[in-house]
C-alpha cells in the first residue's frame, strides 16, 4: 500500500476551517434530565461516558460493527457511537445503568448471570441492551431467530451459546 501526502489529500483540507463549536442540549437519561454543553463532534456514546460518567455503555470498535455501545434511544436499540449527541435534543436514553430497580436486577441481566452469557464482560452491557430490545420486538421465536436478531452484537470471547440461552429464557419469562 503506497503512502504519501498526495494520497492523504491534506492539501484539500480547508485551511480556514472553523474551530471547535459547541451547543447545548438536554438528554433524558435513565429518566433523569441532563443538560449538556457539547462539542458538535461528540457522539452520543461519548456524551454518556465522558460527560455523564455513565461508563456502563462500552466503546468497542467505535464504528458500528460490534454493538458494545448499544443503548435504547426513545425505546429503540441503536449504536450510540454512530450518532451525534446533538441530533437527540430532548430524547429519552436508557443505558445499562437504567435497567435494575435498586438491587433487583432486570430479568435479562439475571438471565445472563444464570446462563454464563459472558466471559470478559466487555460486550455484555451492549448485549443486554440489545437483548431487552430484541425481546420487546418479538424476535425470539427460535434460537436461530435470536442469533439473527442479536447479530449486531459481537462477543470476542465467544459466549454466544450462553447469550442465546439467556435471551431465550428472559423472553419466555417476559
Amino acid at each position: 500500500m503506497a503512502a504519501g501526502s498526495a494520497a492523504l489529500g491534506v492539501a484539500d483540507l480547508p485551511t480556514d476551517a472553523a474551530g471547535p463549536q459547541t451547543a447545548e442540549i438536554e438528554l433524558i437519561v435513565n429518566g433523569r434530565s441532563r443538560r449538556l454543553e457539547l462539542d458538535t463532534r461528540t457522539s452520543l456514546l461519548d456524551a454518556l461516558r465522558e460527560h455523564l460518567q455513565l461508563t456502563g455503555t462500552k466503546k468497542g470498535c467505535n464504528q458500528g460493527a460490534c454493538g458494545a455501545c448499544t443503548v435504547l434511544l426513545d425505546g429503540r436499540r441503536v449504536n450510540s457511537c454512530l450518532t451525534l449527541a446533538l441530533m437527540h435534543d430532548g430524547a429519552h436514553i436508557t443505558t445499562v445503568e437504567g435497567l435494575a430497580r435498586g438491587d433487583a436486577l432486570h430479568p435479562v441481566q439475571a438471565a445472563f448471570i444464570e446462563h454464563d452469557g459472558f466471559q470478559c464482560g466487555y460486550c455484555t452491557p451492549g448485549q443486554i441492551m440489545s437483548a431487552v430490545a430484541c425481546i420487546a420486538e418479538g424476535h425470539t421465536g427460535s434460537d436461530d431467530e435470536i442469533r439473527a436478531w442479536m447479530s449486531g452484537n459481537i462477543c470476542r470471547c465467544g459466549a454466544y451459546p450462553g447469550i442465546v440461552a439467556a435471551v431465550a429464557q428472559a423472553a419466555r419469562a417476559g
Partner: protein
Amino acid sequence: MHPFSFHAAATEQEAIAEAAAGGRYIAGGTTLVDLMREEVERPRRLIDINRLPLRDVHVQDDGLVIGALARMSDVARDPATAQVQPLIVDALVEGASPQIRNMASIGGNLLQRVRCSYFRTLDAPCNKRTPGSGCSAIGGANSGHALFGTSVHCVATHPSDLAVALVALDAVILTRGPGGARRFPVEALYRMPGETPHLEHTLEPGEMIVEIRVPHGSYARRARYLKVRDRASYEFAVVSVAVAMDIDGGIVRDVRLAAGGVGTMPWRLRGSEAVLTGRQSGRAAWRDAAERAIDGAQPLVGNHFKVELLRRTVVRALEMVGGAA
C-alpha cells in the same frame, strides 16, 4: 473528526437553503458519522433533517410510497409493505444490524458510500476519496470488488441491498432542491465511476431525496432477495440477487432481476429478464438466465470466483421463487 457547525432544520425550505449554501444533510448518520470520524468525510456544516415530516409509509393506487426519512426498520416491519412488496422487506432485513436499521434512513441507505477498505484508509491512494491519486484496489486486495461497471479508476461495489431491490422493481425517486422538484428512476440516481469515481450520484447540490415510489407489478408478490455473504447475518453481500416473477400456467409472464455485490452500482439484469420472459419456468430457463447474467463480467485478479457465484446465485434465487423443477 474535523470541527463543524450544526443546525437542525425546522422546515424543508430552510434545510434546502442551508444545503444550497454549502451545508451537508445528515439523517440517520450511520455512514456519515463513521466516515467523518475516519476523516474521509470533512463537512464544515451539518444540516440535521430528521425533524422534517418525511417518514410516512403507505400504499396508494399506483404503488408503495416510502418517505425518505423512514428508518429501515420502520419500512421492514410495515405490514402493508410486506404485503405489496415483500422483496423490499427481504432486502431491508438482510441489510445491516437491528441497531443500524433503527437508525439508518431510506434516503441515506441509497446514498451510502462504498465499503472498499482503501477508500476508508487515508494513506492509500483512492480516486474516489482523492481524485487523481490512483486506485489501490486494482492491483491490491480486490476479492470484494466489482465485475460490472468498473473503470481503470475505480472498481468498488455499491453496498446497498435495498437499492438492488428498488432497481429491480423500477422504483422512482422524488427529490426537491434549489432547482425545484424532480422525479427519476432509482437506477438513474447512480453513476458508474468512469473518469470521475468521486461523483457517485446524480443529485444536484442541495437536492434532497424526499420520497421513493415503487409501482405495483404482477411480479411483486412472488419475490426473493438472496444474499450470499461471509457470515450468516450482519455482513455485506459477496453476491446478491433480487428476483420478482409472475408465473402463470408454468410460463414466466413478467420478471425483474437485479444483482448486488457485483456492480459499481445496483446491477439490473435485463438480459436475463429477456431470456426468461415468455419461457417455460424451470431449471433450463434458470440456467440460461444465469448464463446471460454473467455476460460482460470483467473479473479482477481476486474476484474471479464471483462470476461462478453470480451464476449459481441467480439459479438459486430463481429456484426459490419459481421452483426447482
